């Protein structure tokens, strides 16, 4: 009986062994392979300014420069520009007043002598549209960038520095950037009249020379009307960005009495130094007089006619603002 079972088990083992050999044992598999490497490219770019788009803005004359964006990487990309500005005064007035036109050029060195052509982008430095396009590896694109002043009404002397940042992108995560900057300056023209009253905005009284003697105080007095050439007549003589404010006696001008805060304004001989030099900044229809020597501002702190005008630390207050009332 036991032998029967052993024989049966041996038989089943043989069956299962042969049966499990399966169909595959008679097929051959031939292996081969592809062994390789795949490299990735890289993104890089430069932005240069072959001709500066900075300069001095005067009247309607344009200042024209050029920028060049170059794909220095190995992958094609899309470029886009953005502009930020900074000004000396902190005001956006000049950036807003300057109109800008940009157009592609094959000759950036010749931009100053060319006029806008083809597709142009225009705006102001405060709101300039993006320049966009695609660049193959090693390719470059140049733009002429032309600035010009529109209306200068109420515009004060200032400088603005537009920065053009270009970004080259490939895919959603690869980018490179570069930027260029230039400074544009504007000098407000001197008032065209010869003689002015300096009328304080806060007190509505006029700066008045108390005596023709050197060192006489400049006092706050009611403005004479009709205006005549008297102790309230001043002439602005501009030299560069500064002016001398002279009195009827041509050798005498408004000066500081001391290089400190809250010191009286006096008359002094105009050749005596920077204590008589003033930068005159226009803000709307008013002007502020900042002494070159002390860096302080002419002010009428009086509450009634009579006291001397002072030279105080500058701050944006009507007591330091004057209107120029033409006399003749």
């Amino acid at each position, binding site marked *: 009986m036991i032998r029967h079972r052993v024989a049966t088990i041996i*038989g089943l083992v043989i069956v299962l062994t042969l049966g499990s050999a399966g169909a595959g044992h008679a097929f051959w598999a*031939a292996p081969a392979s592809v062994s390789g490497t795949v490299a990735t490219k890289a993104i890089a770019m430069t932005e240069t300014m072959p001709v500066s788009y900075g300069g001095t803005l005067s009247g309607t004359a344009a200042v024209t420069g050029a920028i060049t964006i170059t794909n220095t990487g190995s992958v094609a990309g899309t470029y886009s520009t953005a502009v930020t500005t900074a000004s000396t005064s902190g005001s956006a007035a000049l950036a807003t007043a300057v109109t800008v036109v940009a157009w592609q050029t094959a000759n950036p060195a010749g931009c100053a002598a060319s006029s806008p052509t083809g597709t142009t982008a225009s705006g102001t430095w405060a709101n300039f549209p993006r320049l966009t396009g695609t660049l193959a590896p090693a390719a470059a694109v140049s733009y002429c960038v032309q600035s010009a002043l529109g209306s200068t009404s109420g515009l004060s002397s200032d400088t603005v520095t537009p920065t053009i940042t270009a970004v080259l992108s490939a895919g959603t995560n690869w980018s490179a950037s570069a930027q260029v900057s230039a400074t544009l300056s504007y000098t407000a023209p001197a008032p065209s009249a010869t003689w002015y009253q300096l009328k304080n905005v806060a007190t509505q009284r006029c700066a008045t020379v108390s005596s023709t003697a050197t060192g006489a105080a400049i006092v706050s007095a009611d403005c004479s009307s009709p205006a005549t050439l008297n102790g309230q007549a001043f002439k602005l003589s501009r030299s560069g960005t500064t002016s001398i404010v002279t009195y009827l006696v041509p050798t005498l001008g408004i000066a500081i009495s001391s290089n400190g805060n809250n010191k009286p304004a006096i008359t002094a001989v105009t050749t005596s130094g920077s204590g008589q030099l003033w930068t005159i900044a226009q803000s709307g229809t008013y002007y502020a007089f900042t002494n070159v020597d002390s860096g302080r501002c002419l002010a009428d702190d009086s509450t009634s006619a009579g006291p001397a005008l002072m030279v105080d630390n500058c701050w944006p207050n009507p007591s330091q603002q004057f209107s120029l009332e033409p006399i003749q």
Partner: protein
Amino acid sequence: MRSAMIAVFVSCIVAIIVALSATAGSYALWNGTATVSGATITAGSSAITINGAATASPALGALGPGESAVTPLTIVNTGSTPVSLAVTGTTIGTDAASLAVAPSLTATLTPVADATGCVVGLTAGSTGALSGFTTTASPISLAKGASTTLCLQLALATSAPSVVQGKSAAFTMALTGTQVAP
């Protein structure tokens, strides 16, 4: 005693019958009946080459985001039996660059008429991540001595991270030709 021997004998007969029936495919290959006199019997073989070698190292152009590179693979059945072709696995190099780049790579393997048909943009065939890539389309049968051309296309994802710039990924794609009945 005698019954035991009978049981063993029956079991062996059953085993042989079942075994032969289970191997019917290959059994059928040798199922002819003829008289061979003084002949030499040579075993069959399966072998394939890719671009003329067992291991091909094709050149692939560099890739930027959203870009693809292609290379034709000419497969020749150099064995003595027909084979069915399939990519059975793809491994990536273990270096840091390969591991960084590989997740952004996609492979597409497309049958083409000849090498000139291997161009960027093919979508037929099998597509999948390069790492672990295998063919999912129907295997290609290749008769003894025949050849076929496959177009291998590798694409870098548009969303490839910035850190993979200027790197390279090594890979090995295993192609297997499995014998089939003629």
